[in-house]
C-alpha cells in the first residue's frame, strides 16, 4: 500500500520541473562475448539513432512510436541504475537487448557469441568539455538460440 502511494503521489502532486537542468545523459552499450572469460569486448551502442527522420515518419510517429518510447523508458531505467542499482532496471534493459538480439536487430551480429553484457556510459558537459563516464556494468547473460530464416 505504501509503495502504491509512493508511485501515485508524483502523479497527483507533480513537480513539473521539465528540463530544469540538463544532466548526464545515458547511452546503453552492449558487448557480445564467446565465453564468460572472453576479454575481447567491443562495445556497440544499443539502438543508435537514425541519421535522418523524414516529416512523414514524424507524423506517423505521432500515433505509432513504440520503439522510441521503449528507448525512452530504457533511458529512465539507466538513470535509475545510476541513482540506485536495482534488479528491475537492469533486467528491463537486458530484456530489450535480448529481444533485439533474437529479432536480429542488433548492429553487431557476432554469430559465435554465447553471452551478452551491457554497460551504461553517461555523457555530460563540464564547462566547455564533454566527459564520458562508465557507471555501470551488467551481469553477463547467456544468449538464447536464434532462429535463422532460409533467405
Amino acid at each position, binding site marked *: 500500500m505504501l509503495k*502504491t502511494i509512493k508511485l501515485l503521489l508524483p502523479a*497527483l502532486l507533480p513537480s513539473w520541473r*521539465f528540463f530544469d537542468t540538463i544532466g548526464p*545523459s545515458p547511452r546503453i552499450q552492449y558487448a557480445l562475448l564467446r565465453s564468460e572469460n572472453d576479454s575481447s569486448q567491443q562495445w556497440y551502442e544499443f539502438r543508435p*539513432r537514425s541519421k535522418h*527522420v523524414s*516529416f512523414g515518419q*514524424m507524423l506517423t*510517429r505521432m500515433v505509432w512510436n*513504440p520503439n522510441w518510447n521503449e528507448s525512452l523508458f530504457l533511458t529512465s531505467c539507466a538513470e535509475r541504475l545510476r541513482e540506485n542499482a536495482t534488479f528491475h532496471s537492469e533486467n528491463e534493459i537486458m530484456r530489450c537487448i535480448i529481444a533485439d538480439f533474437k529479432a536480429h536487430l542488433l548492429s553487431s551480429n557476432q554469430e559465435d557469441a554465447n553471452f551478452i553484457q551491457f554497460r551504461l556510459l553517461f555523457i555530460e558537459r563540464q564547462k566547455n568539455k564533454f566527459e564520458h563516464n562508465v557507471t555501470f556494468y551488467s551481469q553477463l547473460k547467456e544468449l538464447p538460440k536464434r532462429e535463422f530464416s532460409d533467405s
Partner: protein
Amino acid sequence: MTLELAIRLTEILLGISLVQQSIEHLQLHKLLRVLYLFRIILALLLIIGLQVYWVSIFLLLLAVFILHRFQGPYNGGADRMSLLVLCCVCLYYFAPSKYWQEIAFAYLAIQLLLSYFISGWVKLINSDWRNGRALRDVFQFSAYPVSESIRTWSESPRLLFLMSWSIILFELLLPMLIMSEITLAIALVIAACFHFVNACIFGLNRFFWAWIAAYPSVLWLQLRLFTNS
C-alpha cells in the same frame, strides 16, 4: 462550456490517449498483451461514454498495476499527466456534490497551468537556459533528439537562444492568458503546436495526447471564473 460537456470532452481525449499508448504496448510486451487489450476496451468505453463510473475505476486500477510493473511511470511526465487526468475524472464521479465535482476538475486545470508555469520558472532561474546553453545541450548530447540531423541544430546558437526565450516566456505567460476566453484559446493552440513540435523532434508523442486531454478543464475553468461570476 458546462462542467458536464468539459468532462465528456476530457473523457474522449483521455480515451484516445490511452488507446494510443496501449496499442504501442501491444507490440512491446507480449506477456502484458491481455492487460493492454483490456485497457483498450475500457478506453473505447470511456470514449463512447458507457458506464464511465466503473470504467474510470477499472482504468485507475490498471494504471496502478502498470506503475508497479514498471516501478514507476513508463513514459515519465506523459504517463503522470494521463494518470492525473484519470484520477480527476474518477474524483468527479465519486464526488458527493456538484461543489466537490468542480473542485476535482478545477484541480486538473490548475495543475495543467502549473505544468507550464513551473517549467518556465525553473528555466528562467537557470543561467544556462537564459543564454541558450541548456537547449544546446539538449540537442548536442541528450537522449532526446530523434535523429543525427536534428542534433546539428546545436550548431545554431543564435536560433537556440531565441528558442530558449520563446519557450521560457510562453510557459510563464500561458497561465496569465486565462483572463480572456480568446487569449486562452490562442494560447492552447500554440501550446498544442509546441507539444507537436516536441513530438516530432524529440519523439515525445505521448505528451501531445496526454496534455491535450487536460485542455477542456482549463477552458471550463476560464468560463467558470471569469464569465459565470
